[in-house]
């Protein structure tokens, strides 16, 4: 067990040494959200209506930018080879790395979310719903995204391909998450949407680590 906490600490340590890589996707997110009032309409009602979708789409896009970092360094410097030859369980290692990635890329996003909600004129109820969907949905983004990252890590030009592979897979999450926030806006219950997102998260948590480990092995071959 202490081995895995060792990886956890090391990855966290490395992530905080590369601050630019942490901050840039967040800045991107903020800027994308800024574009909507400018491009669509600054009217408060319009913003409130499109707000949940805009925040979620921006979050997915910015997470795609940051996703590549997940295994890139470890693959390029050979640390991944050494992990595989250490006799440790690769699915567990992948799960730890995904957890770190979630911590460093989505927790800041959650911290930033009140600002985004304010920009897009979300009500308090909507904001709570948004937080809950982000809390449940963002680990799903990390877990499923990591499979595709594992597959494309050996390719030199993996960036756009990664987005092509992942965007269709993220559509159900987008639908359920935005509809939860929409329901909150109408003072309707939205537990069912949250429950579905939670179910998808559990499914991903059970299967994704093995898929990630398999993809990393394929990339090493």
């Amino acid at each position, binding site marked *: 067990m202490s081995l895995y906490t060792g990886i956890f600490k*090391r990855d966290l340590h490395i992530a905080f040494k590369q601050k630019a890589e942490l901050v840039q996707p967040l800045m991107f997110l903020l800027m994308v959200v800024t574009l909507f009032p400018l491009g669509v309409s600054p009217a408060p009602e319009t913003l409130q209506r499109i707000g949940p979708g805009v925040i979620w789409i921006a979050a997915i896009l910015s997470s795609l930018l940051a996703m590549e970092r997940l295994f890139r360094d470890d693959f390029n*410097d*050979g640390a991944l*080879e050494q992990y595989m030859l250490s*006799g440790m369980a690769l699915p567990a290692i992948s799960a730890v790395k995904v957890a770190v990635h979630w911590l460093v890329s989505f927790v800041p996003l959650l911290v930033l979310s009140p600002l985004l909600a304010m920009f897009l004129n979300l009500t308090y109820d909507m904001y709570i719903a948004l937080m809950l969907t982000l809390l449940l949905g963002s680990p799903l983004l990390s877990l499923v995204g990591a499979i595709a990252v594992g597959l494309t890590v050996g390719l030199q030009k993996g960036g756009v391909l990664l987005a092509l592979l992942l965007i269709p897979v993220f559509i159900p999450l987008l639908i359920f998450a935005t509809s939860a926030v929409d329901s909150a806006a109408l003072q309707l219950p939205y537990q069912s949407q949250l429950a579905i997102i939670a179910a998808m998260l559990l499914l991903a948590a059970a299967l994704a680590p093995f898929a990630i480990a398999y993809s990393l*092995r394929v990339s090493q071959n």
Partner: protein
Amino acid sequence: MLEACSVTCSKRDRVLFENLSLGVKAGDLLYLRGPNGAGKTSLLRILTGLSVPDTGSVKFAGQDIKAYPSEYYQQLLYLGHKSGTNGSLSALDNLQFWLAQHGVQNNQDRLYEVLAKVGLVGLEDVPVRFLSAGQQRRVALARLWLKRAQVWILDEPFTALDVKGVAMLENAMKVHVESGGVVITTSHQMLSNEAGEHRVFDLEYRF
């Protein structure tokens, strides 16, 4: 001790080698030779279990390494083209982490001692990316003195090393082999007499 049983490997649908069998026993130093693209690295990676051969299997102490990976990995030390060190961590941190990961007991003093031996005195806590290529290679090589492993698989270990470094490494191989270990290595330059007795295995470039 370690044997490859009729392994076949193809890359980009070109067959690199077919039904290749190869065995090493305790006290062997095997030097793999062949032109670029002959499949030296692929063979080494198959021997470590990182790559899966199209056919055939690799056995360690008579057991398939796929079936008993942890026994094999306890006794294996692999150094590839990539050093396996993270650039933003220091040599000390990198090695400490690597040792913990491979389940090797370590203490600070021993680490300093080995780093001094490979010629990195005073560079122990500088982030690795600030070191020169040769120095980075030395950080990776420091593992040879830290983990007690029977099988060393070293892919191009001499790249970027200076004359002194080469001599040091060859000596280490010799000592390891004499104490009953196994070394499998590739290199573009010939091994000198420093390295002691060795067996050469030629890989042909195939079409």
